[in-house]
């Protein structure tokens, strides 16, 4: 595969004594959507959170192996974690708006990164909200508290917040799990739009969704990467029997 954005090599992850990710190796291609599927508890979120080193905050967490982002192993000692997180934005499994106004939620990332220019902040806020397909719903009430939004709107707000700081990678953990079909469709369209600019990794429990939106699909089970291929192949003629069983819903 050409144009590799992230190279995962023999990556292991432990929460204390539980070995959650086992020798995962995979190449993630730039400007494509990579879908991650697998049964609950298999380590999808953990894998995603390893890519922006979000797991650092968890007590007793230990990572081994390499995740190479643009040629640099992000687990090297001299790496600037803040820089990694700026590059790899994240939309969490549970949407987590801050108890601030809609505007301040989006502007937050810019402000902490030292942007002072009010005009530029306004521009970015509008652009991000448009990109996240929520602008029309909130443009008249940017000063309202983000908690007043519906669940689906909050999720798109969180997407907009991640986009505002212009990352290169967007990590999405089941961004559509709390959304109704219309909102889900919006988010899916949005993802197709976003991949022009960003490299996207998305965790989903919905097979149809994975088939619809991702270019590549990775199937995890019990912390191991079972199979990883172009989505069309994964969903038509997977190599492993167990992948086929999972995709067709025969278990899990």
């Amino acid at each position, binding site marked *: 595969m050409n144009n590799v954005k992230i190279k995962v090599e023999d990556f292991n992850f432990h929460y204390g004594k539980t070995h959650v990710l086992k020798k995962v190796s995979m190449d993630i291609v730039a400007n494509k959507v990579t879908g991650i599927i697998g049964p609950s508890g298999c380590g999808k979120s953990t894998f995603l959170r390893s890519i*922006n080193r*979000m797991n650092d*905050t968890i*007590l007793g967490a230990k990572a081994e192996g390499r995740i190479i982002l643009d040629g640099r192993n992000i687990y090297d000692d001299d790496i600037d974690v*803040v*820089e990694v*997180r*700026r590059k790899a*934005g*994240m939309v*969490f499994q*549970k949407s*987590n708006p*801050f*108890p601030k*106004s809609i505007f301040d939620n989006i502007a*937050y*990332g810019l*402000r*902490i*990164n030292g942007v002072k220019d009010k005009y530029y902040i306004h521009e970015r806020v509008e652009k991000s909200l448009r990109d996240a397909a929520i602008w029309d719903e909130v443009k008249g009430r940017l000063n309202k*508290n983000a*908690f007043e939004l519906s669940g689906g709107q909050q999720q798109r707000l*969180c997407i907009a*917040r*991640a986009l505002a*700081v212009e990352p290169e990678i967007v990590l999405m953990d089941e961004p559509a799990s709390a959304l109704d079909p219309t909102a889900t469709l919006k988010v899916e369209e949005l993802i197709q739009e976003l991949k022009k600019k960003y490299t996207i990794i998305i965790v989903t429990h919905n097979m149809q969704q994975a088939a619809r939106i991702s270019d590549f699909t990775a199937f995890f089970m019990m912390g191991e990467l079972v199979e990883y291929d172009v989505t069309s192949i994964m969903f038509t003629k997977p190599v492993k029997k167990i992948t086929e069983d999972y995709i067709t819903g025969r278990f899990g």
Partner: protein
Amino acid sequence: MKKPHISDMLGFGFLRFSVGTVIVALIIILFDIISKGRGVICWKFLITMPKNGMTEGGILPAIIGTFLVTVITALLSIPLGMGCAIYLNEYARENMLNRLIRMSIRNLSGVPSIVYGLFGVILFVQVMNLGTCILSAGMTLGLMTLPWTITASEEALKNVPKSYREGALALGATKWQSIRTNVLPYAIPGMLTGTILGLSRAAGETAPILFTGAAFFIPFLPKSLFSQFMALPYHLYIMSTQHHAISKVRPIAYGTALVLIALVFAMNLGAVIARYRLRKIKME
């Protein structure tokens, strides 16, 4: 309709009895103090010096003394307490040492105030050679309130969801940025409430200031933080047990008690208001 269970009724009855007892006791105390103290309270009582061997005049120096000491207490215990709480809750690793520190802090909040008083004498008055003064007394009270401030502040920090911290970090915030901009603003109302409650308890303490700076009678206002001072709780103690004409100064004692209670009540009210207003700002 189903008949209420007998044990339910007994349990509920006991709860009602407890609440009733507490409220009645409180009302009796308040009523006693207000009815006996009301007579002496007037502007003159609040803004003049005691006269004639403290059998006449006001309690101005005691009010000023308590005020100044409380300010020192606050200056010591707010920044230190909040700092400790932030360190313990946000930075310290969960290990034996940390648990030991936390346990000691919990235990310190149960140490009798007279022990703090003795400690204050040794540390501030003697070792640091500050003498008996407002500063020594204020810092002693500050130490005494620290465990409460730390515990309350830590509780407030714990109430801020983890997702606020993670959300900020994921956007490229440094740890301190995420704490400063996305945790503290939501924890401060709770921190302040706990702290002010601690301060109001400190303001009413006698034992810690007894040997560290409070004086029986000083016929003028403190000149500096290195002066001895009069304080409301100590004045009350003197007037009700040590004065040579106790029955004669009874009304003054009750007046002093009333002022002290009003002060503590005002501080607690301030805590409630601060909490309410900050919470509103945060939600906007």
